[in-house]
Structure formats: C-alpha cells, structure tokens
C-alpha cells in the first residue's frame, strides 16, 4: 500500500479511512464536510485544523482519544527534535546534565504551555528514546525516556519549593499534587505521541496506527476492563440509569393522559361563550417503577460485577423502589449499602467486607435462586421489573429453572443481561440458553450494547 505522503487530498482520505478502521463511524457526508472545512480555515494552524476535523468527524466524546492519536500521526507537529527547545535558552537539551533536565521538567510540570511541554518532550525522546535495532535501523521507546527522567520522583522537591514551609497534608498540598499529576500525564502523552510519530516515519503510518488506538470507551469489554476505565465508565453509567428509569416509566404512561378535569374545562369554556374549545385533563398519577436487581458478584465476572454494582447504585438513585441482591453461591440483600446520597466507593468496600453472598466461593445459580425464592420472594410483585445480571455459568450445578420460572411469573417484566459474547453461551458450564427460555437474555458486554438494550425497552 502506498504511503499517504502525497497531496492533501490523499492525506485527508487516508486519515478518514484510518478513523473508520479504528471504529469511528465517519459517513461520506461528514468526510465531505471536513473537506469543506479545510477550504475555509488556515491549514498551517495545527490546532485549528485539529478542531475543524473534530467538529466535522467526531460526534461522540468516546471517540476523541482515538481521534487524537490518529490526528497526531497523520498531521504530526513540526519534526524539529533537539533544536526545538527555543523557549528556554538556559539549558541545551542535547548536552545538559540529567539534573538540570529534571529541574527544567519540574518547572514545566507546574506551569507551562502545551507548546513548551511538547517541545521538551520531543527533545527528550530524541535524546533518551532511541535504541539501535540493527544496522541503519532504530527503535523508539517512551519507557526509556520516562525511566531516565522519572517525573514521579520530582513530586517531593516540587512540593518543598511551592509550599515553602506551609503546613503539609492540607488543601494547598492536595492542589499542587493534582496540578503536578496532571502535568506528568500531559508529559507522558506528549512523549508517547512523539514516539509514535518517529516510529511512523520509520515504518509507515498504517502499521503503527493499527496498534496505537485503543477501542473507544463504549466498546470496551466489561470483562476486560481496567481500573482507569471504570472511573470513566462511572460517568457514562449515570445517564444510562436515568434513561432506563425513564424508559420503564414512559412505557407505562403512554396512551394515558389522565382523566378529564371537568371543572377546569368548563371554566375555560366561559371565554368562548360556553363552548368547551380546550379540554383540560388532570395530570396522570405518576407511575412508580419498582426494580429488583439480582447480580452475580463472583470472581469470574468481577469486573462485570463491579460495573453492575455501579449500575445498581445509579439505578438506586433513579427509582423510587429498588432492591438489590448479590449472589455467588448464596444470596444476600445489598440494598442497604446503596443508600441514596451515600458514597459509591465506600459502599463497594463495605459491601465486599460485610455482605453474606459466599459459602464455598463457587458460583451456584441454582442454589442462589432457591435461597432467593425462600427468603426474598416477597420482593417481587405485579409492579416489579426484575433485572438479572450474570454470565449464567453455574459450575455444572442444577440450574433450578422451575424456581426461576415461578419467580418471573410474579413480576411485570424480567430481563437478563449477560456479559459474555453470544458465541460462548452454552459452552462449558454455561446454561445461558436454558435460562434464556425463561427470561429474555441480551448480550451486554459494553456500554453501547447496554445503551441499545435500554433503547429496545421502549
């Protein structure tokens, strides 16, 4: 495949293709919009170009990180390397002692423009990031840059400088820490970006582009989620819970406008000589959806469980009446940990320590369902929606289908969300299809599938 080094049009087309390959849906019309934007903005201004592409092509924040990586590859910053640090003439990045470089970095971490930070990062990659990979070829690495400068170890001296004897451990320190941590992350990003650029120059943009872009947040598998992703997911889950609550409510409300308000209608008709032109209705009585959540909190689905607990917590805030139950091989009510207004992080910790969900530590759906029917069957009623979250893997124990059937028959509606890919259902100890015959089961591995599920409820 030829390198997209030719005209601007080639580069534009290559960029759009790479975005699509990375999972950003760019329609033809949007590609044309972007091309149109190119005609009216100053192409030499790189940030303006980036903003123009973002405005026309990226319509969802989840796609933004991937977009930025690809943009930096297709439209790299000026490739000046060592000569770049002009903003501060006091040090020469090519020859300066490590100590001086670290001092300079410490200064940049507390206050710097993007430009200064980027230029310094480029110079540092040039100096520390290179490793010979054979005659005439070289590899570039960010970790060697980070190891040489180790920005994390700068914190102590920065704090000493900035606080200057003020009390430690308080607000001032916290604020500086936050500021420096943000600075370190920006520096890391700048280094990683420059390393990618150099690799792209050596071996071609397409090759690096494929491995450099992580999937967008809403397509990350719940079962393979990292801690950092979870924090960001939390923000995505709240609106979804609100939406789910609204969906379950609206469904009930449609087609019911409330009863005719006779007095109000007659009063209004006086204006038009006794003809009741405008009819007034009493506001419909609000429907109070009730929700019972049953979630698998075993280790095999621990990341998913973490997510489902988040969802539970968010739903708890939206619904008037939510009862949540966690199970591994026996079941316990966990509603009490999620009081509205309580702190979610704390609730999770308490939950892990106090709830009684584990007897032998191996998931047993059948046993859990039986216990649930015994102890908490009164939680279900004709107004209740039942939401089961789990992978339906029961360690070859009897599934207790009849129990589930009788439970479901008492509810208004029931749904099952399964975090495993559909292909893996019914393999090994999974009894997904059997449960699926009783409760409609949906694959729910990421936020976009959860969103889709909520939309189908309407």
């Amino acid at each position: 495949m030829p390198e997209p080094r030719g005209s601007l049009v080639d580069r534009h087309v290559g960029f759009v293709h790479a975005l699509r390959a990375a999972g950003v849906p760019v329609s033809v019309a949007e590609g044309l919009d972007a091309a149109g934007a190119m005609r009216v903005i100053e192409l030499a201004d790189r940030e303006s170009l980036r903003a123009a592409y973002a405005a026309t092509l990226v319509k969802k924040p989840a796609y933004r990180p991937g977009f930025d990586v690809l943009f930096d590859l297709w439209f790299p910053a000026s490739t000046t390397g060592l000569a770049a640090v002009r903003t501060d003439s006091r040090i020469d990045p090519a020859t300066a002692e490590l100590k001086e470089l670290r001092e300079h970095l410490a200064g940049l971490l507390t206050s710097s423009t993007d430009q200064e930070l980027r230029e310094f990062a480029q110079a540092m990659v040039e100096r520390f990031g290179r490793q010979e990979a054979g005659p005439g070829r070289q590899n570039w690495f960010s970790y060697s840059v980070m190891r040489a400068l180790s920005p994390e170890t700068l914190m102590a001296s920065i704090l000493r400088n900035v606080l200057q004897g003020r009390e430690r451990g308080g607000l001032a320190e916290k604020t500086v820490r936050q500021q420096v941590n943000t600075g370190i992350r920006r520096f890391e990003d700048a280094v990683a970006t420059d390393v990618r650029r150099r690799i792209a120059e050596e071996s071609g943009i397409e090759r690096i582009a494929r491995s450099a872009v992580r999937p967008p947040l809403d397509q990350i598998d719940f079962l393979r989620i990292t801690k950092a992703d979870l924090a960001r997911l939390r923000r995505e889950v709240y609106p979804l819970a609100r939406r789910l609550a609204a969906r379950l409510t609206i469904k009930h409300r449609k087609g019911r406008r409330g009863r005719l308000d006779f007095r109000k209608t007659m009063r209004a008709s006086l204006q038009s000589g006794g003809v009741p032109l405008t009819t007034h209705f009493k506001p419909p009585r609000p429907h109070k959806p009730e929700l019972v959540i049953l979630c698998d909190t075993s280790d095999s689905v621990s990341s998913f469980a973490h997510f489902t607990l988040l969802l539970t917590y968010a739903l708890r805030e939206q619904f008037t009446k939510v009862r949540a139950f966690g199970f591994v091989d026996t079941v316990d009510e966990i509603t009490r940990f999620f009081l509205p207004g309580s702190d979610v992080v704390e609730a999770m910790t308490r939950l892990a320590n106090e709830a009684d969900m584990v007897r032998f530590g191996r998931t047993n759906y059948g046993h859990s369902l039986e216990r649930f029917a015994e102890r908490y069957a009164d939680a279900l009623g004709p107004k209740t929606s039942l939401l089961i979250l789990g992978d339906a893997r029961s360690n070859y124990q009897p599934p207790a289908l009849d129990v589930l059937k009788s439970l479901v028959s008492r509810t208004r509606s029931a749904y099952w969300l399964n975090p495993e890919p559909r292909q893996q259902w019914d393999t090994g100890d999974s009894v997904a299809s059997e449960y699926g015959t009783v409760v409609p089961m949906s694959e729910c591995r990421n936020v976009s599938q959860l969103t889709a599920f909520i939309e189908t409820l309407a």
Partner: protein
Amino acid sequence: MFDSPADVTERLAAVDYLSDDAISTSVFLAAALGKPLLVEGPAGVGKTQLAKAVAMTTGAELIRLQCYEGLDEARALYEWNYKKQLLRIQATSDDDDIFTEEFLLERPLLKAIRADGPTVLLIDETDKADVEVEGLLLELLSDFQVTIPELGTIAATRRPYVVLTSNATRELSEALKRRCLYLHIEYPTPERERDIVLAQVPGLRAELAEQLARTVATLRALELKKAPSVAETVDWANTLLALGREELDEATVAGTLGVVLKHASDHERAAKELGLPDA
C-alpha cells in the same frame, strides 16, 4: 459573520466569553459552512452562554426553544389559533378561509425561519425532548424550511445561526448528529478558568482567582456526584469577594463549600480528601 477563528476568539472575548481553539474554530465553521452547531458537555460549562455570546457579538436576535419531555409541534413550530378561527366562523356567515397567516401562532422554530434580520436559534437541552422532536428538527436543520400542510412549505428567507445544546443524558440520533457540527466543551483548564473568573468578577485579585481555579480543578478530580461547574466557580468568587476574604485557606473553603458542592455526600468526601476542618 466571522473572518477567522481568531476573529471569533476576539469578538467573543469582547462580550466576556473566553473561548479556546476548539470553540472558536467550531463557531467559525458553523458560520462559514452554514451548518447547525451541536454543543455537548457537562452542565454549567457555558454551552447556552456560548449561543448568547454569539448572538450578542453579531447583533443577532436570540430565539430560544427550551426542550423538555412532552414538547410537541404546537409548542415548537406553530399552532392554529382555534378560538379566533371559531369566533370568525361564528361572526361571518360566508365561508371565509380560516387557514391563513392571520390565524397562525408562531412558535420559536417558525419564528426563526421567518425572521428577516440576523437570528441565532438556540435549541436548548435537546436531549430532554422526545425522539419525535428530533424528527421534527431534521427538515429544519438540513433544508432550513418547515412544511405546514395548509400553507405549504416555508423556506428561510435568511438562514438562522443554529446552536443545539445537550447534556448527553441520552444519545441523540445519528441523523441529527450527521447534520450538525459537533463541539464537546469540557471543564476549562485552570488557566482558562482563572481568566473566566477574572472577566466575570472584576475586583477579584488575580492570585485569589488562580487559587480558586486550582482548588476547583482538585475538587473535580475527586469522584463527586456533581462536579462544580464554571458558573459555580464564578459564584464562589463572588462569595469570597462579598465576604472580603483574601486567601482561600482550609477554613474559608470549609465555610463556603456549599456554594460549589450541592450534595451532602460530596461535602463529606471533599472534607475527607482535602483535610478540611469541620464546618
């Protein structure tokens, strides 16, 4: 409307709206390409304010459609004045045409389409409206026209500058997004927030504004239920000014935290993480 993104930055700053590269470029492109601009982001980062600032700096009339659940055509687009129509029928015996301009009640969308002067149409909190309203908007946003069965199609005499805002409580449809330019406004960097505070609260010392912006950034980094918005930072600045505080120390923060944090659990969390004394 605008010459360049830099021109946008300058003119918005003149009406006290401090923009950044992304905002200026998007605002400029929306004008240059004649496309609606969809602005998303957390509550209180200045999405609505942006539309107001654009209207102010271009001398355009601002027409605002506030969306909510249950918003319908009659409230968004147009309505027939039934009472007047009925009275006309009763008053005159001849079969007068009662579907004319005279009986048409203009609602924000139609008003924006028919306006002669420059107009900024703000469709606020689009995500709050039902999906059907999006359908209603599609014709307007792609062709800048609306169709009234009894009167025919009314095309815009002069294209309004359209800004849609959304808090992203639900995903807007692909069709709608495709027709719009997209701008995601995040919380500003501490540097920009300091400048915003200084622009909004004259009389505040620059140093205190800096401290304020940094502290708010720290608060936002905590896992809070509701992170402080820019508007709340400005409120905080005003509070400090009113109280005559010169320094943002622990006691001051603890005493005035209610201005920026609106949940009891957020208060507890902030107090614990920042080591504040009991207020």
